[in-house]
């Protein structure tokens, strides 16, 4: 009985959570789609079951995952409001991630799981900035360069001041950066602000980030680009996301990648690693979640 009530209760809580997310989404203004405007090197866009080769003029729906390779020079995504995000090599990021609260009236434009991003706002419009497992960069109007890696996370205020919040620190006050300052933290250690990046940090910044490139939205926004499909994303390629310490995103993955779960190899890997991402269990074994009275 208790188990039955618990099942009903957990079902109710999940419904309330979904309703809350829906209310949250409705409360935020609709976001413009990102537009790919520069692609130097290899990059793919994962949109559920579909994987596309990134190409200039490609419009990006919300929640797509951008993946760049080791030799990628630069991939740029622009928004209609003039804000920009450049991505460097070895980067995994989500464009216009849903489910995150707005900060200063703007939801994050990017979820940076790993890699390099350079974001810029305009004089009149703040960039949505990014969220990463450990940091929430609040909307800003200047330009930042950031790297998120397992061993180091740092944010450089190239132009303009900004604020960020350390997500894994309880009741953390926003950390303010003046133009030219850098926030760095090694792994999970406490972060610190320095007056400027170290030579080693500056040396690592992708070369493509060091030039000011013109915006290309006006030239590309009306171009009709037929997406070029690549092989669907494999479990190994998606694993980092599936195991990401980000419940907001992981909750959505079973729904978004349900079609991939029909692939035997993908499903087998999901089942094998189910302990690492239990949120997939309902999709993989729905029969375990039927009410006791339902026919099995």
């Amino acid at each position, binding site marked *: 009985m208790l188990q039955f009530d618990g099942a009903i209760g957990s079902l109710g809580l999940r419904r309330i959570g979904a309703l809350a997310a829906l209310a949250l989404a409705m409360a935020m203004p609709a976001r413009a789609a990102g537009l790919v405007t520069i692609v130097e090197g290899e990059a793919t866009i994962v949109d559920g079951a579909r994987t596309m080769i990134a190409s200039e003029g490609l419009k990006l729906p919300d929640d797509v995952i951008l993946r760049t390779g080791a030799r990628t020079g630069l991939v740029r995504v622009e928004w209609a409001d003039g804000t920009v995000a450049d991505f460097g090599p070895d980067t995994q990021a989500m464009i216009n991630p849903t489910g995150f609260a707005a900060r200063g009236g703007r939801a994050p434009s990017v979820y940076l799981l790993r890699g390099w991003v350079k974001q810029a706002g305009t004089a009149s419009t703040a960039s949505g900035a990014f969220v990463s497992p450990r940091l929430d960069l609040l909307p800003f109007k200047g330009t930042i360069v950031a790297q998120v890696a397992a061993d180091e996370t740092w944010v450089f205020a190239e132009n303009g001041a900004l604020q960020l919040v350390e997500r894994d620190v309880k009741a953390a006050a926003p950390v303010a950066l003046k133009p030219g300052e850098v926030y760095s933290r090694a792994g999970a250690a406490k972060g610190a602000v320095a007056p400027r990046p170290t030579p080693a940090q500056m040396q690592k*910044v992708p070369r493509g980030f060091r*030039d*000011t490139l013109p915006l290309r939205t006006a030239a590309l926004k009306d171009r009709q680009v037929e997406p070029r499909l690549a092989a669907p994303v494999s479990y190994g390629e998606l694993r980092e996301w599936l195991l990401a310490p980000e419940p907001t995103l992981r909750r959505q993955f079973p729904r978004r990648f349900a079609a991939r779960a029909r692939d035997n190899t993908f499903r087998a890997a999901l089942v094998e690693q189910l302990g690492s991402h239990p949120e997939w269990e309902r999709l993989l074994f729905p029969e375990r979640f039927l009410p006791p009275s339902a026919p099995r």
Partner: protein
Amino acid sequence: MKLLVKFNLIYILVMAIGVGVSAYITRNLLVKNAQDEVVNNARMLVSKANAVRGYTSGQIQKLLETQMKYEFLPQSVPSYSAMEVLGSLLKDYPDFFYKEATLNPTNPRDRAVGWEVDVVNQFRSNAELKEVVGQRETPTGASLYLARPLRITNPACLQCHSSVEAAPKTMVDKYGPANGFGWNLNEVIGAQVVSVPFALPLKRAEQSFTVFIGSLVGVFVVVGIMLNIMIWFVVVRPVTKLSELADRVSQGDLNAPEFPSAGNDEIGVLSQSFNRMRTSVVQAMKMLES
């Protein structure tokens, strides 16, 4: 002394005086012209340098602004660009030397030394002075130089050269905090100097002079030879023949022929006179005999 010898002696004397005077006047003229040409070439070099400086500060600097936040790029510095372009250009003209001699430079390579400091101070003490052309002695000989002031007229220059705090951090990383700061607007901080060994214009003048004098002497010699030939045919030979006939008549040879006279020039008149005299002498001799 024969007529031709006298003529040639006089001709050589006159030629030597003429060539000597021409050489003196021409040499001075050629040296001045060569010097002016070298100075004008130096002016063009300085103008080239200024064009490169303007292009760098007007077009290149802003393109490299973002990169400069990560790594200082000397290509954004007008002085560096000018030195590089002229350095490359002057590989084909090794006699010329260009330097932006500065009292307090960022790059020690550009520091003004010795006489360059004096030149810069001339510009600093006289705002109206736009150019200095001069000569100086060096261990390898006399040197001609042209200098123009480097004055800070663009406030953008002070972004890198006013104070350490205002300068790009990457620039301070590369060059240190001690050099190239404290500049002020409208201050003369150095001079653009083009140097060339004085031997260069002299060499050019010498070459031109040699060709000119050689040509002049050659012309004189050819003219002299032609005059000698002409005098021989027109004067010396007829006079010699006339003299032989006169000797024959004077020795009683009444059959000596008349001298064939042609033309109305002096030799022609002389031959007509001789023929009349010969006819008179022959008639007189015949009257005496009869």
